[in-house]
Every structure is written in C-alpha cells, then in structure tokens.
C-alpha cells in the first residue's frame, strides 16, 4: 500500500514537472499576423545559391537588392533600392552605382558597398558551386573566376571607386545589366557571418539581413516566422508578423483558407479552378513565362521549315487554354505579356487553310506519306491534357498522326538535352523582365537551345539588342528577331503565357498581383 502511494506521488510529481509543448504560434496577435502558404520547404535561404521561387519569396522580404521593380508599372521599370542611382558609360559597357549610406544590417553593422562586392564574389566563387554563378558572367573576368582561371577577385571587373560607389566593367555592352541586380542572387552579403557559422548561417539565430522583415523562426518542413524589422531604412512594414506555412497539398491549404486559417494561398489546383474562379478572393495575373512546344529542327520531317510552319498554323491555342480553364493567356510570341518587348503581332497564328496548303507545298499532299511524329512531355496531368489536345488537333486539322510519350521530369530533361523528339514540351520563366532573357535561349551558342536551330542573322539581332539603350530601337530589333524565330524558321510554337493564381483573403488590403510573381509583404495591411 505504502509502495503504491510512493509510486503514485512520484508519477504525479513527474507529470507535473512536464512542460506542455507550446503551440508554435502561441502569443501571436492575429490582427497583426499575416498567414501565407508558401507551399514547400525552401531548399535553401542562402541567396547566392537558391534557385527556386519559395526561397525567393522569403529572401525578397528579408533582404533587398541594389535595384527594385516598380511593380505597378506595366513595363516593370526600375526603381532605386540599395543603390540610389546608376549610370552607364562607354555604350553600356561600364556601369557606376552610387550606394545608400543610411542603411544598417539588423545587427547594427552599417551597410557598405563592400558587402555588395562580397556577395558578388561569393556568387561567382567556384567553391560556392552556385548554379546561378552565370548570372554575373557578363562582368569582365567573372567567367574565368568561376572556372578557376583567375584566382584573384581584384582582376574581375567590379571594384570600389570609394566606400559607396561601385564600378562594373562588363565584357561587352549590356543595356539590361541593372535588371540583373533586382534578383536575389546578387544581393549583398555579410561574409563575416557566413564564415562564422558556415552552412548554418541561414538559421534564424545566425542570419543577418537588412530588409523590411527579419526571420525569427524556421521550423523545417513546417513554417517560417517573419517579424517587422524596426531598423529597416525605408518605410516600415505595416503588418508586424508573417507566418509562412509549408502546406504541400493544395486542397488541404484551400480547406484551411476557407476555414479562415490562412490569408494567402499561392497556388491553386487546376482541377478546382472552375469553382475557385467564382470566389471573390480569387486573383490571377500573367507570369513572365511561356509554355511552348519546341521542334527538333534536325529530325525529319521537322527539319523542313515549311512543315514546321504548317504544324504551327494547325494549333488552336484558344482551344487549349479553354480546356485548361486556368486563365492562361494564349500567345504566339515568345516574349510574355506584362513586360517591355511584348509584341502581340508576332508569331504564327491558327489558320487551318494555310496549314493544309503549306503541308501540301512541302510535298505531303498525300498525307499517308507523312511519317508519324513523336511528341514528348514530362509526366504531369496538365501536360498530358495539352499534348492530347494537340495530337487531336493535328489529326483533325492536318490529317497527320502523332505518337505521344511521357517521361519523369529528370529523365525527360536528359532526353531533351541529348536527343529531343520531333516536338517536345518545355517552359521558360524569365529571371528578369528583359526580352533578351527569353530570346537568347535559341541563339546558336545557347546551351539551352534544344531545337538545334542555328541562325547567324538571329544571333546578330540578339547581340545588337543586348547593347542597344534606346527603347524604341530595341523594340524594333526584338520584333525582327521574333519574326525570324517564330514566323520564318518556326523553331518553336509558343502556346500560352503562364498564369499565377492565388486566393487572397479579404482581410488583406493593398495586395497587387504582378507578373514577376513577387510578394512584398511590407505594403500590405490587415483589415
């Protein structure tokens, strides 16, 4: 009896001494907390290394670059960020940046131009092994630094003219160079923090940032907490707390959104779009990305430009986007809507009569002589639906047979890089809103040119566009380039402009969807 009593008292004492696990959002004032679903765990918050959109969403709120976008401008013009002004010289081969002097990192250390150079050096340093190192390879000597040919960073064309001025010397003129500095991969960095903590420098207790928010918690695979930074140099964020959840399954997230437990859901399942579009919280916007089908221009019968033109004329994009019902914007051009250089007049449009005539002209008036062509795509329900639609259209409009096949993403990438089929599905989302970023994909030298189409006139046009500063002249050059690519050579068939769809709670005020898919939280308020 006595023994049992002792056991009982001991157990109670132990239980009483146990601490209850605190709920991760305990103590947060809901009226000052924004709850966003960023969908996945960010693979890395190290901005010299990360290449995905989830990491970018967090990084763009805890940090800032030299230059920012005016997200309200349909042509996405540039605004000063950490750089107050920038001036080109020598025909855009040299750029000089004047850096702000009133900025502090959130540990109190003043921000200087050296931190910018440190970030750039780390980006192109071979030991960092960043897959975005190529971003700054336009700078003189940068590519050699990455490949190890140069080991001394002072030989690279980026130097300090004084404590707050940076001068960049490029390999050749590049009128769109400032655009690159809006991207997180070129953000400044505190190399002392990185050295001190090594790979763990991005953990919340170690990371040092200077943006409108600071990261206070990171529970891996679950959530990230951001809190307003009171030391930010610009206008302070209006909402104090942001919780970024990582809910992979879209329907689960939508459930939570409808229960009022989420304020922003940043990705919607295509199968539920028809219903979700009816909600007042639904918002969409074109993204700077193009979904397209490329031709292998070396594989018969696709080595014949007339055949390619015929196929391009036979595809009804409206039918495809109607079927997908996701708000995708059909497009015949290869520069997306919502940025400078977009041209609605270029490309090969839907015209069945022309298609038929062209195929006859190519020598296939007897359709049975036309070989069965193969169309490849990576395994995915939506890609399958689009491919089947195209297969049906080509059969109906041109009378030709198409064989479809699909492979898992990585396997598909390998096939497309080594031996692409007659037609293959691909997409391209721009790193920055400049036509060069899209159109240089298919230059002769581009490693991303899976079409194997090579044309020196096109190459020259792209090179000219890259150095031209006058906007109107540039527009003309890119119009010519698109016409050559899409109407004459028809190396690829753009299908639609990517679209990003969100559910934004009516609690959130001042949210503006933008084609860069940026989510700056600092200007939002809560009702």
């Amino acid at each position, binding site marked *: 009896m006595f023994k049992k009593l002792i056991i009982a008292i001991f*157990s109670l004492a*132990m*239980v009483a*001494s*146990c*601490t*209850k*696990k605190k*709920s*991760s959002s305990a103590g947060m004032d809901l009226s000052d907390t924004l709850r966003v679903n960023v969908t996945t*765990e960010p*693979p*890395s918050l*190290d901005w010299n*290394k*990360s*290449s995905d959109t989830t990491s970018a969403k967090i990084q763009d709120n805890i940090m800032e670059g030299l230059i920012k976008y005016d997200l309200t401008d349909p042509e996405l013009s540039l605004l000063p960020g950490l750089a107050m002004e920038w001036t080109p010289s020598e025909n855009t081969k040299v750029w000089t940046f004047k850096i702000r002097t009133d900025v502090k990192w959130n540990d109190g250390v003043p921000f200087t131009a050296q931190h910018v150079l440190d970030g750039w050096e780390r980006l192109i340093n*071979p*030991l*960092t*092994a*960043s*897959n975005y*190192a*190529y971003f700054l*390879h336009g700078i003189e000597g940068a*590519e050699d630094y*990455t490949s190890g040919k140069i080991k001394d960073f002072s030989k690279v064309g980026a130097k300090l003219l004084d404590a707050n001025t940076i001068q960049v010397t490029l390999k050749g003129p590049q009128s769109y160079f400032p655009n690159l500095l809006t991207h997180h991969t070129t953000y400044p960095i505190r190399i002392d923090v990185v050295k001190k903590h*090594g*790979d*763990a420098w*991005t953990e919340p207790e170690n990371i040092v940032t200077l943006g409108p928010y600071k990261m206070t918690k990171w*529970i*891996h*695979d679950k959530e990230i907490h951001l809190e307003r930074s009171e030391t930010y140099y610009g206008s302070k964020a209006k909402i104090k707390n942001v919780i970024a*959840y*990582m*809910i*992979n*399954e879209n*329907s*689960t*997230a939508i*459930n*939570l959104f*409808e*229960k009022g*437990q989420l304020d922003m859901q940043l990705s919607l399942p295509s199968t539920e779009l028809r219903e979700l579009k009816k909600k007042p919280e639904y918002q969409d916007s074109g993204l700077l990305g193009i979904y397209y089908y490329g031709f292998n221009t070396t594989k018969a019968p696709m080595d014949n430009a007339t055949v390619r033109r015929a196929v391009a004329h036979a595809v009804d994009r409206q039918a495809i986007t109607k079927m997908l019902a996701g708000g995708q914007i059909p497009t015949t051009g290869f520069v997306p809507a919502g940025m400078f250089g977009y041209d609605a007049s270029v490309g090969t449009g839907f015209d069945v009569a022309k298609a038929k005539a062209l195929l006859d002209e190519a020598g296939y008036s007897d359709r049975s002589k036309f070989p069965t062509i193969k169309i490849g795509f990576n395994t995915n329900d939506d890609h399958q639906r689009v491919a089947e639609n195209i297969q049906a259209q080509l059969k109906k409009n041109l009378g030709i047979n198409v064989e479809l096949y699909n492979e*898992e*993403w*990585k*396997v598909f*990438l*390998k096939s497309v*890089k080594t031996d692409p089929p007659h037609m293959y599905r*691909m*997409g*391209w989302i721009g790193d920055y809103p400049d036509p060069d970023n899209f159109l240089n994909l298919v230059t002769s030298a581009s*490693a*991303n040119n899976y079409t194997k189409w090579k044309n020196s006139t096109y190459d020259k046009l792209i090179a000219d566009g890259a150095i031209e500063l006058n906007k109107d002249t540039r527009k003309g050059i890119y119009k010519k380039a698109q016409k050559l690519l899409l109407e004459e050579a028809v190396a690829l068939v753009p299908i639609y402009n990517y679209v990003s769809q969100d559910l934004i709670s009516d609690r959130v005020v001042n949210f503006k969807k933008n084609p860069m898919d940026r989510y700056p939280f600092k200007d939002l308020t809560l009702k």
Partner: protein
Amino acid sequence: MKTKIIKILGLATLLALVSSLLLSFFAYEIPAPLFYANFLLVGASFIYYSISQKMVLFVIKRIIGAFGVILIIASLTFFLMRFMPGGPFDEEKTLPPEIKANIEAKYNLNAPLYEQYFDYIGGLVQGDMGQSYKYLGRNVSDIVAEVFPASFQLGLYALIISFLLGIPLGLFAAAYHNKWQDTTSMMLAILGVTLPSFLVAPIVIQFFSFKLDWLPAAFWDGPSYYILPMIVLGTRPAATIARLTRASVLEVIRSDYIRTAKAKGLSRKTVLFKHVLRNSLIPVLTYAGPLAAGILSGTFIIEIIFAIPGMGKHLIQSVNNRDYPLILATTLLFSALLVFANLIVDLLYSYFDPRIRLS
C-alpha cells in the same frame, strides 16, 4: 527473487512506455530522464528476455546479420541510384560547363564511382551521411532527425489503433462465426482494406472538420490534430488484422487442445482469451513486423493531406530530386526499422507459441 525481478522490470518498462506515450499524445514534452529510461528499460527487458529464453546466441547472430543486411542495402541503393537517368542538378536551364564542374567538385561527383562508394561507407560508419543536394547546406541526418519524430508518432498511434480495433473485431467475428455479426464485421474489414486513404481522408476532413467543426483539418500541433490522421491511417491495417485474426482463430478453435480445454470445463471467456487468442496471434505477429516498419517510417499520402511535417514526403521526393544522400538516409532508416521489427517479431514468436524453437 527471479520472478520478482521480472515483474518489476516488466512493470517499470510498461509504465515508462505508457507514460511516454500518454505524455506525447497530450502534447507534453517528454522529460529527458524518462526519454532515456525508455531505451534503458526496453534494452534491459530485451536482454533479460533473451537470457531467460536461452536465445542469446540467436540474438547476437541476428544483430550481426542485421548490420550485414543494412550494409548490403546501402550498397545496392548507392549503385541503383546512380544508374537512374537524370542527375541531382539537372534543371531546365543547362548549366554552363564550369559551373557544373564546380558543383561536381563540391559534392565529389566527378570522382570514380568506387571512390565515392568507399567515401560514403566510411562516412556512414562514422555517422556522417553527408549533406542534401536539394536542401543546400543541411546535414541529411539533421533533416531526418527533424522529420522522423512526427512520422514515428503518427505511425505509433495508428499501429495502436489498428491493434485495438483489429484484434477484437477479428475475435468477435470468429466467435460468432457465420452469424450476422461475422458477416458485418468482415464487410467492414473489406471496406477498410479497399478504400484508399486519399479517398477516406478528404471525406473524413470534410465531415469532421468542416461540417461538424470538431477537429482541425491539418497540422500536427496537439491531441486534437492527431485524431483524424491516426484513425485514417490505422483503419486499413486494422481491417487486415481483423481478417487475419478471424481466420487464425477459426483454425485454432478447431484444434484438439481447445476441445480439451472446453471439456475440462473452463469458461468460454478463459478459453477464448487465455488459450485461443494467444495461439492465433502468430500470423498477426508476422504481418505486424513489416507493417510497423512501414508505418513508422512515414506515409506519404496521409502526411501530405494533413500537412504533417514527417518523413514520408522525403522518402518519395528525394528520389524525384535525385538527392542521393537523402535517398540513402531514408532508405537505410526504413531498412533498419524493418530489420529490427522482424527481430522483435521472431523473438516474440517463441513467447506466443513455445513450439517454435528458434535455434
């Protein structure tokens, strides 16, 4: 004296395990002494049991064998992964050659394969499984250590549910063999086995979370969050266990020794629970081993639907990402669990049926 030790050891182990389970279920932190006491007591019971059943040699042989099995699995996985087309760093943008070279140098991917293999095994022996190729800069062992507890918890609760539901249901059905209770139970069991979790989970969420607002729809933050996932996860194995139990019980019931027991005049209850049940659990035990290993290492669908930060997602996605170190870590963890579970099951066989003598 001996029996007293057994009794105290057994009681203490049970007490430690049950109190840890209850604490974790009600979202309390398990205090460190209790946490380690669990391992100590289970280890001690394990050793004592092996000695008393004279199976020490068997256990030692099996443990050595387990290391061998895990080494073989590590090697097979290592090579199989490399033969998959597509590498960890392949993206739409083809990387310029000098960048590709830098990445390969960093992860030693350009070294000859046998060198990478020996590096890996060497690291494994020292407990270093390398860094993830996808989650840059993070140790794979840290990633697994963070996500494994949630999967383990979910799996444990689901296992308990499956036994608590399955065995009584099977027993019940067998006891009322060929009557309506039997048919209904077995129909329920078939439903449980055939309905896939990705169908049941959303239905259950819609009903209990949306319509009735009794339980949360996602996350893993406390007891109310545990209930729906553990029930959805536990019903399928429960159904299988019910059918196994029923079939086994029906067979055992016909045996001579049961007839003897009945003839001796023992009550129906004693016969059923003391004799029949104990002898018919062998098939259930066989099923339970791999079941435990599978369920404890994470279930992709339940974890995704209920947004539980567990290991199931990594088991699958690491392969899609060709994240070699993480693939190896998750595979090895699963294999270790499986080997261990099978060992426990084999040891328990001799308890349930002394006729099974393990050499």
